[in-house]
């Protein structure tokens, strides 16, 4: 059995390439040889809305229609109109 001892001082590390453009170059040549990413890409589709609260309001039909029309015109959900209305109410009443 040989006596193997390591002199750590004899070891040298080489320059490592970590710049993004160098890594891209490595990815390019490796893809050409079939060494492609095997990890799942980021989740596709619409991100879940942070608006998780609900209000349960019965209003007169004309108010419901006007809120719906305004939301459609602006391209937002009806909840956004209600949030803005609530913000105005708080400002006005000092809540």
């Amino acid at each position: 059995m040989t006596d193997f001892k390591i002199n750590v001082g004899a070891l040298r590390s080489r320059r490592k390439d970590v710049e993004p453009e160098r890594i891209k170059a490595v990815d390019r040549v490796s893809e050409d040889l079939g060494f492609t990413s095997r990890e799942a890409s980021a989740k596709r589709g619409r991100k879940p809305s942070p608006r998780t609260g609900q209000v349960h309001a019965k209003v007169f039909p004309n108010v419901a229609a006007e809120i719906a029309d305004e939301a459609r015109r602006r391209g937002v959900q009806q909840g956004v109109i209600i949030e803005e209305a609530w913000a105005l109410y708080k400002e006005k009443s000092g809540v």
Partner: protein
Amino acid sequence: MPTVVIASPKGGAGKSTTAVILGTEFAHAGANVTMMDCDPNGSLTLWSERGTLPERIEVVSGLREGEIIRAIKAHDQDGRIVVVDLEGVASRLVSRAISQADLVIIPMRATTLDATIGVRALQLIEEEAEALERDIPHAVVFTMTRAIQSKQHKGIVGSLKEQGVDVIEPELMERAAFSALFEFGGDLYSMPGQGNADKAIENAQGFAKAVFARLAGEQGA
């Protein structure tokens, strides 16, 4: 400190066994070693959990392609030898790890199939070296070999050497003690006697010395 990457797109070539033998022999010889498990099968992690981890060894598990470069950079600056065990597939994780290597070891069984697929790793290293405009030292080690070499084995070794490929000697022979590393964990010195333990240790030390010589620049391709 240097980074040794164990790579082959061929599964079952002996990557994890090579990594454990190299890491434990380096640690036994006095070096601090970080072993990085980049194989989704987690062979290194399983080994590390089987028994008491030998002194001077740290195991980092579950590295993904987006993390491997940062992880190697973080560990090869603090006086440690880094040994990276990769998955047995052609992937971006493999190519990125190779780009950070001071030495790439390609374990290969002495069969035509292993040699054919192993050559893909050699091609990848060549292409990456060209893209990075620097040499990436690499060497092949034959694994699970027998004392009497077949004609096929001799032919493959001869063909690689003719093409200027660095072939590490001694080869890692088929030994009960090497496969038992994954049964008992630890290293060849701590496990209960398996087959001819002295011969296994001699083989492992000879291999580690040959790798160390390449890292120290004492022996090139």
